[in-house]
């Protein structure tokens, strides 16, 4: 067991983990932040996307120990003071979710797309950028609309 110390959603956190513990296991099992989901174990589905030092990362692909000293933001840290983030609002307004399981990863990826590509996102760009996030419910139609609207609202 090794102790890993990091910042999660603005608060200090630490846990004793095995060398083989993944970042997503640290978040879910040790810190009880169960909003980050595991959908595939092979870095394909994107349900586990979180931000590590400002960049979107599939947290099933990173060892917990690699996050030593990092600033991690999960879906639980996106709203502030009980107020939804504009991207969260957009997913609700545009019906960008059904079962909700892929949604945390979708929102974390969407925020990363805006960080990298700006607030004016066309449909083609959004669809290409969502390559790493699988949704089985929505057919992506409303996710694409939600991300375009959320990006604009973040201006």
């Amino acid at each position: 067991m090794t102790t890993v110390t990091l910042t999660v959603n603005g608060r200090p956190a630490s846990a004793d983990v095995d060398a083989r513990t993944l970042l997503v296991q640290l978040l879910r099992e040790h810190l009880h932040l169960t909003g980050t989901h595991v959908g595939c174990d092979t870095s394909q589905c994107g349900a586990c996307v979180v931000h590590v030092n400002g960049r979107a990362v599939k947290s099933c692909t990173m060892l917990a120990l690699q996050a030593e000293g990092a600033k991690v933001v999960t879906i639980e840290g996106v709203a502030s003071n009980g107020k939804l983030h504009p991207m969260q609002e957009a997913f609700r307004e545009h019906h960008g979710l059904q079962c909700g399981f892929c949604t945390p990863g979708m929102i974390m990826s969407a925020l990363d797309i805006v960080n990298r590509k700006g607030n004016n996102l066309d449909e083609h760009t959004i669809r290409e950028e969502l390559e790493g996030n699988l949704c089985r419910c929505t057919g992506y139609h409303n996710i694409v609309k939600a991300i375009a609207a959320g990006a604009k609202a973040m201006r």
Partner: protein
Amino acid sequence: MSASSIGASERRTEDKRFITGRGQYTDDIRRPYQTHACFLRSPHAHATIKGIDFKKASKMPGVLAILTGDDIANDKIGNLICGWMVLSKDGSPMKAGPHPALAQGKVRYVGDSVAVVIAETLDQAKDAANAIKVDYGVLPAAADLAKARDAGAAQIHENAPRNTIYEWVIGDEAAVDAAIKRAKHVTKIDIVNNRLIPNAIEPRAAIGEYDQGTESFTLWTTSQNPHVARLVLSAFIGIAPEHKFRVIAPDVGGGFGSKIFIYPEETVCIWASKKVGRPVRWTAERNESFQADAHGRDHITHAELAIDEKGKITALKVKTLANIGAYMSTFSSAVPTFLYAPLLSGQYEIPSIYCEVDGVYTNTAPVDAYRGAGRPEACFVIERIVEVAARELHIDPAEFRKKNFIKSFPYQTPVASLYDAGDYPGALDKALQQHDYKNFGKRKAESERNGKLRGIGFSSYIEACGVAPSAVAGSLGCGVGLWESAEIAVTPTGMVEVLTGSHSHGQGHETTFAQLVSAKLGIPMDHITIVHGDTDKVQFGMGTYGSRSGAVGMSAIVQAVDKVIAKGKQVAAHILEAAEGDIEFSDGRFKVAGTDKSAAFGEIALAAYVAHKFPTAQIEPGLKEHAFYDPTNFTFPAGTHICEVEIDPETGVTEIAKWTAIDDFGTVINPMIVEGQVHGGIAQGVGQALLENAVYDKNGQLVTGSFMDYCMPRADNLPSFDVDYVFTKCPSNPLGMKGCGEAGAIAAPVAVINAITSAVGHENVPMPATPNAVWAAIQKSAKLRKAAE
């Protein structure tokens, strides 16, 4: 906040918790002193188990128990069941082989569970499972559906010679043969409906817990129908008596049919929780989902369509081989029979239809209902053969359809279905107009100028939802009734709890059901809570599948709400000092007709509980009503989808250029949610047509065992969809609803294939129509053209 209305696109109540990461799925639940299960699965498709050596594994750190099929047998845990009896044409019952939760003596597919390790941590359980040594006697596998009934094929279950479970028929063979003989033209097709893996993004999961004090069990599980799970686990598998057994299906991350069934893993978790005396949890890894979730589709079909000199269809003959997999899953028998053949008439007047279906065992994962369940397979047969027939006869496919559409209702098909209402020409015309069909030629010419091929495909689909009534389902072999329950519990302050037997796993019931009750009772939606998915709260229910929760589940709610209003009127008569017959209820108020005297819903709720002002000998205190609703018929959603594709002939890559969907779902409660259901359905249908395919090799190894090998539809594979409606009211339920959950998945695959075949000028394009398959079809088509020149 005022009351909602039917037809309003209310934003979803449940979204708040999902977009903030506060949803609670089964794997998010933590129980005190919980333990972890890891299943050891067979790497062979077919083998005898000569021995299992777990001496070393059982001494490894953290290991609490290792259980095998012998323990299942010793504890007299019953086999998993198939709940729908299907008879062969000779009257003999289907030949279901035993399906123990852990293999006994033999494994029959890759992923069959051989043992379970229960340990303090998941890693310890996995490490120990790796250390178990199983001595397999590997047998030849019968993995290929087309060859599984050959002489000399491996025998999977002793009681099913030639791996044949049933030979089922429907319709009048002699009449069909005579019509084919008389026909001016006969179109023949051979099709394979490709095998799919459902892949809800939330993997299946279960937590079993035994309470020694009360001798009762609790199972948290990813189920679309927790009451049915409890019934089967109690009555057939024998875990515990029903009243000592609670099943909770909390937030469930998509189902698409795959979470209807009662699987080995939850059976083992709940059984083992008593053996180890602590909660036992398991969550599938995605490779387990691929191997051991029930798969979908997998038919091989030959069909013949007879057409007379006037271009009218006179008969349809269909022969289908249906892959059931290695064991009969919960509803596997019904999917390729009763949920398939009764839809083969499509939207057409076809005087005679005959269909034979052979259910076949193979050494592959069990096959059961997947979004559409039998109906996409039927739609594919009829819409493909109608399209090919129109092309062979050089008639516009839209005109050929119109000429043969059913135009008056009710309409009795020759395959049992009694269509109640519809407007098939209306939907097709609206689709043609909205799609701008008349300018398709111009768009095609433009594509050709750019060196591309362009094609258009129709799918005038029909489906049957809300399988019912119960007596009919029973007469066809279904082991349960297919009604739904609802309870409306009003609190003294006028807040309303709606308990429903339906289960929401993405469909938005917490919104639409509240919207309905809000509209009926005239109270704000935020005064209403929807309770579902817990057998300790909801007394009984049948769950959600087959697009039944609107037509059946909401009808039960209407029935219960009407009882609440009737009871409220009795109370209001005393409060307002008027005759009960003079009390009217509208806009959330009980009113005395012809006066300005009235009382709000909340006031009457309070009066009902305080019970000061009415004779409690005649009127019981309180305001809580229950209803069981059994529909009078299936519902028949229908419509036309048009898919337009552009294909690069150099690479065979197909791009969907345009999609128009015109659906008739009857009454729509929340258009936003309904459109979302259509989008998702089309995406799964396009996935089947272009991308997805579950592949086993000849030894029964699953070649497509991860998202790296099995191509799921991604955002950049799909277009945006143009979705609109026509409306005919369903006469079989009080709201006039038909159901919308599966329409897209039923309509879409054949629309895509009709479009591709139209573009490439060659009818033989398989699903999935990968670039390689489309390119090969183009080469054949080019050769055909050259040969003709």
